[in-house]
C-alpha cells in the first residue's frame, strides 16, 4: 500500500495563496520545491503535518497563520491532497481569524462526500498519527543530526514512535490511573487518612519534580544540539591554528602535563585533609582532649557493663533464682528493676563503638598536622593557578587573531560540559536512601521514590493487592518494551547496513569510505568513529528513517527540509545520487543556493522522473521572470503568489534585486 502526497492549496494565510500539484508530470518519486526565504515554508510544512492528524490549534497558533497588513482576510484555509492506493482524499483546515477558531473537514473518493470532521481513509486511520507524521517530515538540522549525538535520543525516539512502543506506555498509564482511582476510593478515617494525605502530597511533589527534570533534560538536549555545530567548528578552527604553531603547541602540552600532575596532588591533599578533619583525634584540638577524657572516664566507671545486664537476663529466664528459691512475680519485678538500671545491650554497643573509633583515631591512624595540610594546599593551588595562567597565555598568544572565538568556545565548552553531565550522569544517578524530591535530579531516584511512596500509600489505603499487581504488570510491560526496542534496533541497523552496502558501495556513492552503523541505542552509533560528515550523517539518517518507515505495510513519503545544508559540493552530489536511488516518494524544500551540485546533479541523473517546482510571492521582478518562461510550463497564479513547474524556470530562478 502506498500513501502519496499529491499537492496542497492555501488561501488567506500568512504564506501567499498557492496551489501545488505534485503529480503534474505523472511522477511520484522526487520533488524539489524551491521557495525563497519568507515565502511561508514553515507555515506550509506545519500545516501539511497537521493535515494528517487532528491537531488542537490554540488561538496563539491560529494568529501565526494570519496574513499580514493589506493581505489580511477574515478567513483562510489549507487543503492537502493525498492518495492511498490510488484513491484520492483531502483534508481541509479552515481558520476564522476574527473568532480565532478552526475546523477540519475531510473528503475521500471511496468514502463519498464531504465530512465536516477530521477523518483519514480506513486503510491508514489506525496507523497514521502525530508521532508517525513527525517521522515523515524531517529537518536535517533539527531531526537528523541529533540522531548521531551521544547525548541525544532522536534515533531511539524515532523507533519508539514508529513501532508504537509508546502505546505500551499508555497501558502503563491506564494501570496507574486505575490504581490511583482505587486508592482514592478507599477513604480511611483519622490518623491514617492524615498520613495518606501527607503521602499524597509527597507523591505529587515527586511527580512535579519528575516533570521539571524531564523538561530541563529536553531543554539541555536542545541546547547541546543547537550549539553542536558552532562548538565543533570553532574548536576545529582553534585546534588547526594551534596545530600549525608547533612551538606553542608543545609548550601547552608540557604545561598541561605538569598541570594534570599538580591537580591530582591538589585533589588528593584536599580529600586527605577533609578525612582528617572528620577523624577527630588525629590532630591536635580541644576536641581530641575531650574525647580522650570521655573514654577514660567511661573506662574508670567500667562502662559499658553489658555483661551485668546479660547476667540478669539469664536469671530471669530460669525457674529458680541463684539463691535456689523460686522466682516469684514479685522477685522477677525486683530483678527487672535492677536490670533496667544498667544500660541495654544495644546502648552498650553504641558506647563500645565510641571507644573503638576513639582508640582507632588516637592510636592507630596517622596523626596529622592540619597546618601543614593548609600549607601544602596553598602551595599546590598556587602552582596549579600559575600553570593554568601559562597555558592560557600561550593559547591566547597563538590565538591572538581569534581571541573572541577562543573565548566563545571556552564558554560553550563549560556550558556544554555542565549540560552533558546533567544528561549523562545526574539524571541517571542511583537511588539513595537519603534522596528526597528536593535534593536529587536523578530520574531513576525520583521514580524509585515514587514507587516507595506508592507502596506506602497502598499499605495505608488497603490497596496493597492492586499495587502489587500493577507493579508486576508494569515490570513485564517495561521489560517487553525494552526487549522489543533492542530487537527492532538490531534489525534496523542490519537493514540500514545492507542498504549502505548496496547504495553507497555498489552504486558508487561512497565507494572508498562507506560508514556503517555499529548499533542503535539512544543514538545511531557509527562503526569506528564518533561522528561523520554532515553529508554522510544526512544520508545515513534518511536511510535510517526510510528503513523504519519500510517496516510498515504502507509506503510513506518522506518530506525533508534543508536536505543539503552545510554540505560541501561533493557531499551535495552524493546526496543527489542517493536520492535518485530511493524508491519512496521524496519531497524536499530547497533554496537557490542548493542548485549547483545538488538539484542540477539530480536533474542530470534523473531527467524524466522528477518534479521541479518554484513557488514565490509575486513581485514585478518575479512576474517578469515567469512571463518570459515557456508558455507550456504549468503555472498556478493567484493575486499574491505563483507556482511554476519545470526545471527550466527552477534552474534560473533567483532574486536579483535587493528589496
Amino acid at each position, binding site marked *: 500500500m502506498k500513501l502519496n502526497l499529491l499537492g496542497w492549496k492555501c488561501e488567506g494565510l500568512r504564506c501567499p495563496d498557492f496551489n501545488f500539484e505534485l503529480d503534474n508530470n505523472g511522477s511520484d518519486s522526487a520533488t524539489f520545491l524551491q521557495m525563497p526565504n519568507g515565502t511561508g515554508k514553515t507555515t506550509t510544512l506545519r500545516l501539511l503535518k497537521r493535515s494528517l492528524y487532528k491537531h488542537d490549534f490554540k488561538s496563539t497558533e491560529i494568529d501565526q497563520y494570519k496574513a499580514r497588513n493589506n493581505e489580511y482576510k477574515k478567513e483562510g484555509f489549507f487543503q492537502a491532497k493525498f492518495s492511498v492506493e490510488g484513491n484520492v482524499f483531502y483534508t481541509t483546515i479552515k481558520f476564522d481569524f476574527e473568532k480565532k477558531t478552526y475546523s477540519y473537514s475531510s473528503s475521500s473518493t471511496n468514502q463519498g462526500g464531504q465530512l465536516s470532521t477530521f477523518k483519514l481513509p480506513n486503510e491508514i486511520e489506525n496507523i497514521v498519527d502525530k508521532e508517525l507524521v513527525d517521522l515523515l517530515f524531517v529537518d536535517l538540522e533539527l531531526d537528523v543530526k541529533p540522531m548521531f549525538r551521544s547525548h541525544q535520543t532522536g534515533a531511539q525516539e524515532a523507533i519508539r514512535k514508529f513501532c508504537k512502543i509508546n502505546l505500551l506506555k499508555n497501558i502503563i498509564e491506564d494501570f496507574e490511573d486505575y490504581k490511583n482511582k482505587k486508592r482514592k476510593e478507599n477513604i480511611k478515617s483519622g490518623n491514617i487518612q492524615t498520613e495518606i494525605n501527607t503521602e499524597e502530597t509527597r507523591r505529587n511533589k515527586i511527580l512535579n519534580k519528575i516533570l521539571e527534570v524531564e523538561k530541563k533534560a529536553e531543554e539541555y538536549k536542545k541546547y547541546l544540539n543547537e550549539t553542536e555545530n558552532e562548538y565543533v567548528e570553532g574548536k576545529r578552527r582553534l585546534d588547526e591554528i594551534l596545530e600549525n604553531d608547533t612551538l606553542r603547541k608543545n609548550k601547552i602540552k608540557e604545561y598541561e602535563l605538569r598541570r594534570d600532575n599538580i*591537580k591530582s596532588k*591538589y*585533589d588528593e591533599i*584536599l*580529600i586527605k*585533609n*577533609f*578525612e582528617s*578533619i*572528620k*577523624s*577527630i*583525634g588525629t*590532630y*591536635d*584540638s*580541644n*576536641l581530641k582532649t*575531650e*574525647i580522650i*577524657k*570521655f*573514654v577514660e*572516664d567511661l573506662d*574508670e*566507671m*567500667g*562502662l559499658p557493663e553489658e555483661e551485668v545486664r546479660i547476667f540478669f537476663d539469664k536469671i530471669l529466664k530460669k525457674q529458680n533464682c541463684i539463691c535456689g528459691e523460686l522466682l516469684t512475680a514479685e522477685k522477677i519485678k525486683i530483678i527487672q528493676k535492677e536490670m533496667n*538500671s*544498667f*544500660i*541495654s545491650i*544495644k*546502648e552498650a*554497643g*553504641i*558506647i563500645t*563503638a*565510641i571507644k*573503638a*573509633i*576513639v582508640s582507632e*583515631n588516637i592510636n592507630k591512624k596517622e596523626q596529622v598536622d*592540619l*597546618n601543614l*595540610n*593548609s600549607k601544602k*594546599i*596553598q602551595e*599546590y*593551588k598556587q602552582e596549579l593557578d600559575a600553570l593554568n595562567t601559562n597555558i592560557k597565555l600561550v593559547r591566547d598568544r597563538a590565538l591572538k587573531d581569534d581571541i573572541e572565538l577562543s573565548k566563545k568556545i571556552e564558554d560553550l565548552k563549560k556550558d556544554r560540559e555542565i549540560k552533558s553531565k546533567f544528561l549523562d550522569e545526574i539524571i541517571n544517578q542511583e537511588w*539513595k*536512601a*537519603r534522596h*528526597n524530591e*528536593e*535534593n536529587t535530579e536523578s530520574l531513576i531516584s525520583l521514580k524509585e521514590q515514587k514507587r516507595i511512596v506508592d507502596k506506602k500509600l497502598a499499605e495505608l489505603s488497603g490497596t496493597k493487592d492492586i499495587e502489587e499487581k500493577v507493579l508486576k504488570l508494569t515490570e513485564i510491560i517495561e521489560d517487553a518494551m525494552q526487549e522489543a526496542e533492542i530487537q527492532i534496533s538490531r534489525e534496523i541497523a542490519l537493514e540500514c547496513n545492507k542498504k549502505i552496502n548496496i547504495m553507497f558501495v555498489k552504486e558508487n556513492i561512497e565507494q572508498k569510505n562507506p560508514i556503517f552503523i555499529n548499533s542503535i541505542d539512544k543514538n545511531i552509533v557509527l562503526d569506528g568513529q564518533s561522528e561523520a560528515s554532515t553529508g554522510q550523517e544526512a544520508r545515513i539518517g534518511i536511510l535510517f528513517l526510510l528503513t523504519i518507515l519500510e517496516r510498515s505495510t504502507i509506503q510513506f513519503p518522506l518530506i525533508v527540509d534543508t536536505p543539503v545544508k552545510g554540505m560541501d559540493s561533493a557531499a551535495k552530489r552524493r546526496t543527489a545520487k542517493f536520492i535518485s536511488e530511493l524508491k519512496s516518494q521524496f519531497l524536499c524544500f530547497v533554496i537557490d543556493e542548493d542548485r549547483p551540485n545538488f538539484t542540477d546533479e539530480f536533474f542530470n541523473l534523473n531527467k524524466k522522473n522528477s518534479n521541479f517546482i518554484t513557488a514565490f510571492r509575486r513581485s514585478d521582478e518575479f512576474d517578469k521572470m515567469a512571463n518570459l518562461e515557456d508558455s507550456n510550463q504549468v503555472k498556478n497564479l493567484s493575486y499574491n503568489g505563483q507556482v511554476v513547474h519545470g526545471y527550466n524556470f527552477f534552474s534560473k530562478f533567483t532574486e536579483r534585486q535587493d528589496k
Partner: protein
Amino acid sequence: MSFKLVEKKLEDNEGIFISGKDFFKKIKSEDDSSSPIKYDMDIFILCLILGLKYDQKKPLKEYKFYQSFSPKYIDTHLQTKPIITALLLSRILKSKNVDKNEKEKVKKILQEVLDTNDPTDLKSDYIDLMHEYYLGGHCLLLEKFKYKSPDETSIFFDKYNKLITN
C-alpha cells in the same frame, strides 16, 4: 528525625545571613571539581565540628531549615558518628554537672540520650541539640568569612584548618 541544613534566619534584620546551601555552593564539587565537599552531609559535619569545637549553639526556633537531606549518617560519615555522639554526651554530662564519680547518673543520662532505634543513635531532643551545634558552627563560619560565601576551596580549608586547630 533527620539531618537538615539551615535555610534562613527568621529575623535577619541586617539581611546578611547566608543559607547552608548558598554558603558552600561555590566550593562544592558540583562547582569545583577538586572540592572534597560533595554532599549536604559534608557541609553539616564541617559546621557541626566547628560548633562543637567552639561550644557554640544557636536556638533552632530562630531559624528556618530546608527539608531533611538524610535520615541517617551517609556511608562516608559512618566513622564520624560515634565521635559526634561521644562529644554530645560529653557536653550533656558537663551541662548537667555529672562526672565520673556519679556512675548511676551517667548511666541514666546515657539511657536518656541514646536511641538504639534511630540511625543517628540519638533521641529526638538530642538530634535537636546536634542541630544547635551545627547552627553554631554555621554562624561562626559566616562571621569568620565576613558574611561572604567562599569562592575558593583552598582558601576555605586554609581558614577552616586554622579555626579547628586553634
